[in-house]
């Protein structure tokens, strides 16, 4: 399967070419190149998936295949970074997800970004992102993953800051990069600690079932936990940073400053699940070596899911709502991993997590692209500027509805299957976690339909764009359905969302690589469907027609509402830490210290020397006769000394 290398090389080439020519080529040419390349690699990854899932099964277990492999840099006898391609069920699945969504986004952007300044740059960045994300998922060792992890971070930075003249976009890009960088620090430390004890970076060795590399760390503890626990916790923090787990979630909502297709690709479907992928990749290590960290993952995931869902209920910017929904859904996947066992039925969580990753990528991308379509039509992100759009945009309306139903967990849409597995796994682990997750699922259904009704139903759309001044594109004032390039991805993804649930996922992806038969736990399934339906009903009552209920509720729970819409003040806490503590209380005094203490000491030496020299300068008066006196007296003195002593 040597051709898998092309999947990596093509987008890289596309990035280099598009990046170098920049604006010298016409936007159309650049867009075509980017899209065609993505089309090719999508086809290639489908081929890979087909070939892998049909041939790689040995003794009923999917083997890891490494078709390409080279040493990149050697550190010590044992430690070396390799660049290679590792194919196993989860990486193959990720290949499919990434290329599909990326391809759709590329097509979509042809129309969405039409006429934007820097169109070529946009496509170059998209290719860079795709390249790095693909490199991340096929990494053969943890350091290769780290390399691509950073590349993904920077392409996210570049894409969020695409509208670089907008201060808010620049700030958001900076924030995203720095927050994830902060998390990556722990990831790196985790890698360092892990490699110090295990003397390897290789996934094959680390995640083998009966590995001996951890023997060296036995008994080594720090603050009551084993060193490997610390290392794995660090690696999880790295993943939490990318996947926006509490308390590192603050960058994701702001990242919505980027173009909407970018949000769909990076901040919904692919990059943000890198953390989940990381934990899944290390799952055997977590499970066998450090179960306590794995449980920690579950608790943090559960809290994040709840937290984000609550905030999502009150946001008014549609992309922000989707962003918090993304955080919440990723937390679902994290919970699933945290509660999972290893083998057979125990391993439901792992499988469910991957399944949810897959389905979520599709319907969340769909939601974002749909939202982009809406924004494209009304030139605003705010819910209050929308309403009644179903008449103008039927395709968007229907596809959006499908996605909402999927995320709410209504059968037969894909979300139902994956979410149901997660819930049942959670109930098996602990009823509390299960309860929380069910509640979050209900909230999800509620806020998604709040969003849906607010956009497409509710009050009738009034043409007011002129008054807003948004409309400098010269578009007509009535919103209209998007062109084909934008509609096609919506329809495609909606189709996938409808049918993805019936993929025999357990046969393809599971924690051990062996088959796993999905069986739906009817109690949990019925309960969750009922709860979701009730939530949808509530949302329908509240938002389908303009009504006073939401306002009343808002008044009743004023404190909660304000706190939630201010995102529980987490941003302010961060701002306080960075601005007040780091910038003002550390950096400023340090700069002062450097200038006025250290530098002043050095200057002090010089000044002392100068002072002394000024003082003794008087001796050198320039008066030749004084010199003569001194000379004469000196001579006499020396002569006297010589002769009389």
């Amino acid at each position: 399967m040597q051709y898998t290398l092309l999947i990596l090389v093509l987008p890289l080439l596309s990035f280099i070419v598009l990046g170098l020519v920049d604006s010298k080529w016409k936007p159309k040419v650049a867009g075509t190149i980017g899209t065609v390349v993505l089309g090719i690699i999508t086809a290639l990854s489908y081929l890979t998936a087909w070939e892998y899932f049909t041939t790689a099964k040995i003794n009923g277990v999917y083997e890891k295949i490494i078709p390409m492999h080279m040493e990149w840099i050697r550190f010590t006898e044992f430690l070396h970074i390799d660049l290679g391609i590792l194919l196993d069920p989860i990486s193959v699945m990720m290949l499919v997800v990434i290329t599909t969504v990326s391809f759709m986004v590329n097509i979509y952007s042809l129309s969405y970004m039409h006429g934007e300044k820097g169109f070529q740059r946009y496509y170059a960045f998209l290719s860079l992102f795709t390249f790095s994300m693909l490199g991340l998922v096929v990494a053969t060792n943890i350091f290769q993953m780290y390399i691509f992890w950073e590349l993904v971070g920077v392409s996210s930075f570049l894409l969020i800051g695409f509208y670089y003249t907008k201060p808010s976009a620049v700030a958001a890009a900076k924030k995203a990069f720095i927050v994830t960088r902060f998390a990556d620090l722990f990831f790196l430390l985790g890698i360092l600690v892990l490699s110090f004890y295990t003397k390897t970076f290789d996934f094959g060795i680390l995640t083998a079932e009966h590995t001996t590399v951890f023997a060296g760390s036995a008994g080594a503890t720090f603050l009551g936990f084993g060193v490997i626990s610390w290392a794995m916790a660090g690696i999880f923090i790295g993943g939490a940073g990318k996947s926006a787990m509490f308390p590192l979630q603050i960058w994701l909502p702001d990242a919505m400053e980027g173009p909407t297709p970018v949000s769909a690709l990076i901040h919904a479907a692919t990059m943000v699940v890198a953390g989940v992928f990381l934990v899944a990749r290390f799952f055997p290590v977590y499970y066998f070596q450090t179960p306590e960290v794995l449980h920690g993952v579950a608790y943090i995931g559960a809290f994040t899911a709840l937290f984000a869902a609550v905030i999502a209920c009150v946001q008014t910017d549609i992309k922000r709502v989707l962003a918090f929904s993304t955080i919440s859904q990723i937390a679902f996947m994290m919970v699933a991993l945290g509660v999972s066992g290893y083998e057979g039925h125990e391993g439901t969580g792992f499988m469910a997590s991957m399944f949810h990753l897959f389905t979520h990528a599709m319907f969340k991308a769909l939601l974002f692209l749909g939202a982009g379509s809406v924004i494209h039509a009304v030139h605003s992100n705010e819910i209050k500027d929308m309403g009644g759009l179903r008449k103008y945009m039927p395709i968007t309306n229907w596809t959006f509805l499908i996605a909402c139903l999927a995320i709410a967990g209504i059968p037969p849409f894909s979300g139902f299957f994956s979410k149901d597995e997660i819930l049942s796994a959670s109930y098996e682990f602990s009823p509390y976690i299960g309860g929380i997750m069910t509640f979050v699922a209900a909230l999800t259904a509620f806020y998604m339909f709040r969003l849906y009704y607010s956009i497409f139903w509710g009050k009738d759309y009034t043409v007011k764009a002129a008054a807003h001044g948004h409309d400098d594109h010269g578009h007509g004032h009535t919103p209209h359905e998007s062109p084909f390039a934008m509609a096609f991805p919506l329809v495609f993804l909606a189709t996938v969302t409808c049918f993805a649930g019936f993929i025999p996922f357990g046969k393809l992806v599971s924690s051990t690589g062996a088959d796993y038969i999905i069986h739906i736990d009817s109690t949990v399934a019925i309960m969750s469907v009922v709860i979701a339906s009730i939530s949808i009903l509530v949302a329908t009552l509240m938002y389908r027609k303009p009504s006073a209920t939401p306002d009343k509720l808002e008044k009743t729970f004023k404190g909660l509402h304000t706190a939630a819409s201010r995102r529980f003040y987490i941003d302010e806490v961060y701002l306080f830490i960075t601005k007040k503590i780091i910038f003002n209380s550390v950096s400023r005094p340090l700069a002062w210290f450097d200038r006025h203490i250290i530098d002043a000491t050095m200057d002090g030496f010089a000044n002392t020397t100068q002072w002394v020299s000024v003082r003794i300068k008087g001796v050198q008066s320039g008066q030749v006769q004084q010199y003569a006196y001194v000379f004469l007296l000196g001579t006499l003195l020396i002569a006297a000394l010589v002769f009389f002593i």
Partner: protein
Amino acid sequence: MDILNNILAGQVPMELYLGVSLIMFFAGVYGFLSRRSMLMILISIELMLNAADLNFVTFNRYLFPGQLEGFYFALFTIAIAACETAVAIAIIINIYRNLSSVEVGNLDQMKE
């Protein structure tokens, strides 16, 4: 008393030559230290040089008769004195042009 005896004995002793040059020399020293005109300082220097010459010659004549070291030393010193005077006077005249004064006390601009 020895000196007197020597004098009466019809010979000029070496000390007297040295004494003469000593007086000349310290007259020069006094002039160098006390006068402010650069020309006066130069004159004092000439006195001192001359005293040195006289010493050289005296030592040569009394202590190493038949050799010529001191003699040549005096000769060359005279040459050097001439050079030095020439250059010094050139400088003095130049200074006078610029400062209209040849007072040595004014000449400390180069110390900083």
